[in-house]
């Protein structure tokens, strides 16, 4: 028996076709707009779709890992490896791409505010904005074979911390000037993904992707003089530029009438293969056109595999529940970059060495309710999807080499239907905490909001005669 994803939102039963040229105009308009949004976010930091400052823990490893899969799963705790939907194409499991009816373009931008606190009671406020993903999916054979393309951050480095002081300057000993040493990180790895999802049978789907990881992770130390122009800023940058290929394989099993009539139970799993990346790390002086390269070193790193397993249960057309787990053995991370320690040599990569990395695991759960269910005639707010969830994660970085760090967060979101068939606008929020104030570490309390547009239309299909 074939188990279809529930046409949860009225857009599924759209028998009337629109004029193709108009559809293309709409989609291209959105595409251009999203590109503009992406460009706007990338101007400040050329290597990352991020702007602003984030957690100090992004200094370690490859930065903060970004596991965005879809705006739906983000509001449900960030898992959703088995969650089927015709309005979303989750990135975490390519097997779910087989369920496509619409050509779909999705994108989103987020903002996060972090209040960081250390063991001495000091605190700082950091904010950042970022583009979360740009995804493009379309069916080759409706509900059988789908294609997915996406571009999104894999990791993000955006920490910032400042030390201030005074120093004598000039030949007269009594002349002093205030200085600031600003430590900051920028960049991160990006992931360009392309893949297929294929329904083998009514119950089983599989998928595979090819993933190109690339990017520059840069740490910068800027000594600047806020009160005078007479002293030149000194900017020392340590960067690592990496690129390489990997692949993600996924499977999805859909069962119906398991616990009750007309319910649906899904199990999804995916594995990302270890990623061998090669590149170079460098140390430079100054910035922009005046950059002076002090040294360059080539090397390789290998990112660990990642395994995901999720279950979703839909007892009826109104409710969906998910439970997901993720495991990444970062203790197996390896690098050939040596730490020469010379003045002009780049800083160690990863910061603190591989002993600062540990296995990452993540458990998440979430629920979604659409009060209207399949009733397309219900009121607007009854057709809105309300989502909530939460997760706990053991972070893959362990800056002091001994204290495991955890992140706890609650998530929520609403999904607003639009007059465009197949298009929804999602507004998500996340509230949580990570880290600890013991052992000179830092606890972040973060609040994030994000806005997503999931634009879907039928393309390349024959006009139906009424």
């Amino acid at each position, binding site marked *: 028996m074939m188990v279809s994803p529930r046409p949860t939102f009225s857009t599924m039963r759209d028998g009337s076709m629109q004029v193709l040229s108009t559809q293309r105009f709409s989609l291209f308009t959105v595409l251009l707009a999203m590109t503009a949004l992406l460009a*706007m976010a990338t101007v400040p930091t050329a290597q990352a779709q991020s702007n602003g400052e984030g957690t100090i823990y992004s200094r370690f490893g490859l930065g903060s890992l970004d596991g965005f899969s879809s705006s739906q799963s983000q509001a449900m705790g960030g898992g959703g490896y088995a969650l089927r939907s015709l309005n979303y194409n989750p990135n975490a499991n390519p097997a779910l791409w087989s369920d496509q009816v619409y050509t779909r373009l999705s994108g*989103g931008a987020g903002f996060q505010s972090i209040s960081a606190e250390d063991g001495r009671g000091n605190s*700082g406020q950091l904010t950042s904005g970022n583009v979360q993903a740009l995804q493009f999916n379309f069916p080759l054979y409706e509900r059988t074979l789908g294609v997915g393309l996406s571009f999104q951050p894999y990791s993000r480095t955006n920490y910032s911390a400042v030390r201030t002081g005074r120093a004598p300057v000039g030949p007269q000993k009594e002349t002093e000037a205030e200085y600031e040493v600003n*430590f900051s990180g920028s960049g991160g790895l990006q992931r360009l993904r392309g893949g297929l999802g294929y329904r083998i049978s009514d119950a089983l789907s599989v998928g595979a992707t090819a993933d190109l990881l690339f990017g520059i992770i840069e740490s910068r130390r800027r000594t600047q003089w806020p009160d005078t122009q007479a002293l030149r*800023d000194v900017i020392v940058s340590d960067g690592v530029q990496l690129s390489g290929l990997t692949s993600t394989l996924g499977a999805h099993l859909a069962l119906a009438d398991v616990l009750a009539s007309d319910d649906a139970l899904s199990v999804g799993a995916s594995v990302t293969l270890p990623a061998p990346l090669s590149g170079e790390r460098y140390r430079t002086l*100054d910035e922009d056109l005046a950059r002076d390269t002090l040294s360059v070193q080539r090397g390789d790193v290998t990112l660990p595999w990642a395994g995901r397993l999720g279950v979703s249960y839909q007892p009826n057309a109104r409710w969906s529940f998910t439970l997901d787990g993720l495991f990444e053995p970062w203790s197996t991370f390896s690098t050939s970059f040596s730490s020469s320690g010379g003045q002009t040599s780049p800083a160690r990569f990863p910061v603190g060495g591989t002993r600062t990395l540990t296995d990452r695991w993540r458990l998440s759960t979430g629920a979604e309710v659409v009060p209207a269910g399949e009733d397309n005639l219900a009121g607007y707010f009854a057709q809105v999807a309300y989502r909530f969830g939460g997760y706990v994660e053991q972070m893959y970085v362990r800056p002091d080499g001994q204290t495991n760090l955890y992140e706890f967060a609650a998530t929520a979101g609403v999904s607003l239907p639009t007059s465009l068939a197949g298009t929804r606008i999602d507004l998500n929020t996340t509230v949580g905490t990570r880290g600890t104030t013991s052992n000179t570490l830092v606890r972040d309390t973060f609040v994030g909001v994000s806005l997503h547009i999931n634009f879907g239309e039928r393309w390349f299909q024959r006009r139906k005669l009424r």
Partner: protein
Amino acid sequence: MFMRLSWLCAVLVGGAALLSLSACSDSSDVGLGVGPPSDSLQGGQPLTLDVSPSLADTARDVPITGENARQPPNRDAWRFLAGTVNDPASGPGVIEAEGYVDFAGRNSLPSAIASADDADSLTAELRLPTVYLHGIADGEISVEVYDLTEEATMDSARADASFEADEMNPASVSTAQISPTDSLVTIELRQNWIRQNLTVLQDTSDDGLSFEDNFSGFKIVAPNSEAVVGFSSSDAALRLTHVSDTASADFPALKTFTHITERNAASAPTGYKLLQGGVGAGLTMEWDFDAPPLDTLRNAPLNRAEIFVPVDTSELNRRTGPDFSRPLPSGFRVVATRHPDPDTPSCSNIFGVLGLATGNRACTLPLVSSAAPAAALVSNDIARPIFAQSFRRVRETNGTSDPPLFTTFRVFAADRQSADSGSRATLQPGLPTTVPVLIPDQTAPEDPGPPRATLTVTPL
């Protein structure tokens, strides 16, 4: 369609707002200690250190002391000097200055003077406004004025040049004396000199050029004086006066020059190096980039650099008697000599400024004019490229390195009309002067300390 665009605009505005909210950050020191000690966020603290050069009083650059009002460059407030001074700060050194002045002709004269047949109906005098005094101020100074025997090219002549004068027949009266503290001194010329030159003095042909061709000018000396007096070049004049008519005619100075010699070699007091104005004795400074501490700073990013050559004005004043007058120089001149390596960039390439090159290998460095007379100061704008580029050159790249930009830096006294004349003016030759300047050497106490480059670096 309208509905679609409305949604789209709302989403885009919302997305943009989310991204722009990131400007609200307030970075702090939270997180600086996170991580293993070997890789914590540290460093970046700037460090200021003084780097003393090796000093030698070997620099010699005889200054320009000649000027022609009609020839460029037009030097304001130029002066010429005459007299002898033994400055206590110079040890046994005695400086002797001989002034030269030539006058411009006139295209007309008062009729009483132009038609005078008898030299006895005329008087002639040199009218010289005083603008400089170095030496014992009290008492009168005997001066002698001689005719130059031939036209002298004083334009931009250096102080060691001299011009032939008829010293057997003085033009001035034998009793000519001046008071160096007067603002205007007059030197009466002999009637016999007027008689011999009456025709020339009355010659107004060719708009006065004929006068200039036939009159070569004067040499003014005061060999037995105890002071050097300076006269304004622009205001000096030769005045002819008709005795009965009281009509007068001034011939303004056209060219002036000062010949300066050192009779006994000057020597600096212990603990000091001596800059001797007039004779061009300067200080040579050399920084060794292969020796500590500069060899350890090759890779250190440079925030700021200054070259500071202090003057111990209190020591100068301490060596001055109650009647001794000594102006402090209102400026200095620093000339850097580029390394002979053919790859050494030009002055304009080093500093990004035109007009600093002096000769093949020398760059005259602009100074902070207001630092005088207490110091010669090369500002960060100029000193930083010197050290930053030199560090870059001496830093080994692929196993090779280049020499630093400059081999020596020479410092000279170069008096100015005022200390606030601006850094561009410090590129010009200084006014003729005879004053000594005491520069503390490496044995000097901390204040004012020896000449030094003060570098603020941020170690890698």
